[in-house]
């Protein structure tokens, strides 16, 4: 019998070098759970298993980094993306399911579906805006925002961590395109 996890997770893209002050870096695998629940079914629960679900639509709430990291992106009225450490997925699933026993919801591991890039540096907003048509001013899309949108011809989930710091997440087969698009855009 073969051991579990014989195969190592393979990176989806190799990093490309951007020549400008804005860097585009593939992020290490993270645990990602697509979480759906009707707001009424939450019945006032603001937090589940440490994930803060109280944020407005298109916002990001996050606690700590590393092993205990809990980030919740509210992408729609009944949809969240929960992000945790890659090796915490099973534990988080169990805990969330236990907290919601008997409550209609959906929790699906999509850790392998998505690939993320960080886009950082002065002018990162312009780089994202080269293909993303939404208003990225700090007024319209402040730090702590997160939304599903478009980059060129790919769908992305865009998070703003700080003024010049974004995370761009896309489905894995779009990752080479998204990475290429962003790196091309760093050339101005």
């Amino acid at each position, binding site marked *: 019998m073969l051991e579990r996890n014989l195969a190592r997770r393979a990176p989806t893209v190799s990093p490309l070098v951007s020549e400008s002050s804005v860097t585009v870096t593939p992020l290490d695998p993270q645990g990602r759970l697509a979480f759906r629940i009707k707001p009424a079914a939450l019945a006032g629960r603001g937090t589940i298993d440490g994930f803060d679900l109280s944020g407005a639509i298109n916002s990001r709430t996050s606690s700590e980094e590393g092993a205990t990291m809990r980030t919740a992106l509210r*992408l*729609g009225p009944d*949809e969240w993306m929960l992000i945790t450490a890659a090796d915490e997925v099973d534990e988080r699933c169990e805990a969330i399911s236990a907290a919601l026993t008997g409550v209609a919801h959906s929790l699906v591991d999509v850790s392998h579906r998505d690939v993320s890039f960080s886009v950082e540096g002065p002018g990162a907003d312009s780089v994202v805006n080269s293909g993303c*048509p939404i208003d990225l001013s700090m007024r319209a899309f402040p730090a702590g925002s997160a939304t599903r949108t478009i980059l060129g011809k790919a769908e992305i989930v865009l998070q703003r961590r700080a003024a010049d710091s974004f995370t761009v997440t896309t489905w894995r087969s779009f990752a080479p395109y998204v990475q290429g698009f962003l790196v091309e855009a760093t050339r101005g």
Partner: protein
Amino acid sequence: MLLIDCPYCGKRPEVEFHCGGEAHIARPEMPTAVEDADWGSFLYYRTNPKGLHAERWLHGHGCGRWFNALRDTVSDAFVATYEMGKPRPDRDEATASSPSNA
């Protein structure tokens, strides 16, 4: 490119959306009880007004929600957007023709 006021996300560019045709055409409760002609109307007959038109839109590359919108087919002005299940807002043509970008 249109700018569409998603009831959940606010104003977002048209490329994030998908238009789903005329709104407020309810699927009959019991389709098998519907006459052929009425079913044909349900399937295929749509209004094509010059002026205000209630339409279904999906914010697919956004919050993923379907919603309804009142759009002026002459000016492309979005006069109102509203959640699924809500009644068509009472708006007249005059509101639609005023210059505004929704």
